[in-house]
């Protein structure tokens, strides 16, 4: 069944196989979230997460499918998977460096915090509710 995966900044409806706490994606599906399986490990662009040799079976299956949930667990990201509604997503971690984000204004124009490097920034949250 198609599963909506919300992973980092990507949202995609993919064919995935959910088993308990695992979520297996064929290479083509994984790629739609920006990830590929390389000799170095699971990669997103130039960034690769090496797969621990002894635990390879947790991450990659013989048919080439990769376990996205194992990847998020390995990286210390929280994972929830709503089996009934077919959703999974990770939660990012924090550090002392101000985490970057990209969001639209009222006109849909995108702004990133990182564009403002070189300035002091006061970041404020508010809400209509």
């Amino acid at each position, binding site marked *: 069944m198609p599963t909506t995966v919300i992973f980092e900044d990507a949202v995609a409806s993919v064919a995935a196989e959910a088993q308990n706490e695992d979520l297996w994606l064929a290479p083509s599906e994984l790629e739609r979230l920006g990830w590929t399986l390389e000799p170095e490990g699971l990669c997103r662009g130039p960034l690769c997460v090496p797969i621990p040799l002894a635990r390879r079976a947790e991450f990659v299956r013989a048919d080439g499918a990769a376990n996205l949930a194992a990847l998020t667990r390995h990286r210390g990201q929280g994972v929830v998977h709503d089996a009934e509604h077919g959703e999974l997503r990770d939660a990012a971690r924090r550090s002392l460096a101000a985490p970057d984000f990209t969001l639209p204004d009222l006109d849909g124009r995108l702004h990133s915090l*990182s564009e403002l490097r070189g300035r002091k920034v006061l*970041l404020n949250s508010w809400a*209509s509710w």
Partner: protein
Amino acid sequence: MDLPVWQALYEELAPRSFTVITVAMDAGGAPDVRQWIEAAKPTHPSLIDTRHVVAELYDWVNVPSNAWIDEEGRIVRPNDPGFAGEYFRGMMDPDFDFKAMMKEYGRMRDRYLDAVRDWVANGPGSRWALTPEQVRARMAGPNPDHARAAAYFRLGTCLHEQGRSEAAQEAFAEAKRLRPESWSFKRQAWHLEEPGKSGGPEFWAEVKALGDRPYYPRWEL
């Protein structure tokens, strides 16, 4: 609403390499926030965060929350309530003194804006700029329950966008269970359930249940 205050501060301090970013934590998106933003006519980045991504990244549980970020992208103050205070809490009482509330609001606002000005003028030398150790002490740090709560919350906003309101409320309930101190989770979920509910009897009952505990984190400014 404080948007005009932030816009005025931006206009005042922009020539000194300072900017404000205001972010609306609103799963309802532009329709929910348009009137406030249009009224404030911001020339600073005034953004809309339908999935509360910024709250998740900065570990904020309430609005308003503010962070100060220096020129190199380092957090200098991670989670101030700004000039929001506890003064609103008796608002439903029949003898509530609105004048006193507005006075207290003005006092706290002026104090906070002066602190920002001091930081913009003096950088790390400002008495309001925290050291890395102090910043760390004010940030809870990664916590599996909080990460899962944020994940469930974001799942809820995604389901809401797809028009699956009941499923969305189930995800919000999980988020609230895992992180009961998040007013943002509660109030956003109420608002999506029924506009107005975020400031209705349920909200005031929960505020009352706080007793002596603060609604906003109490840091020394």
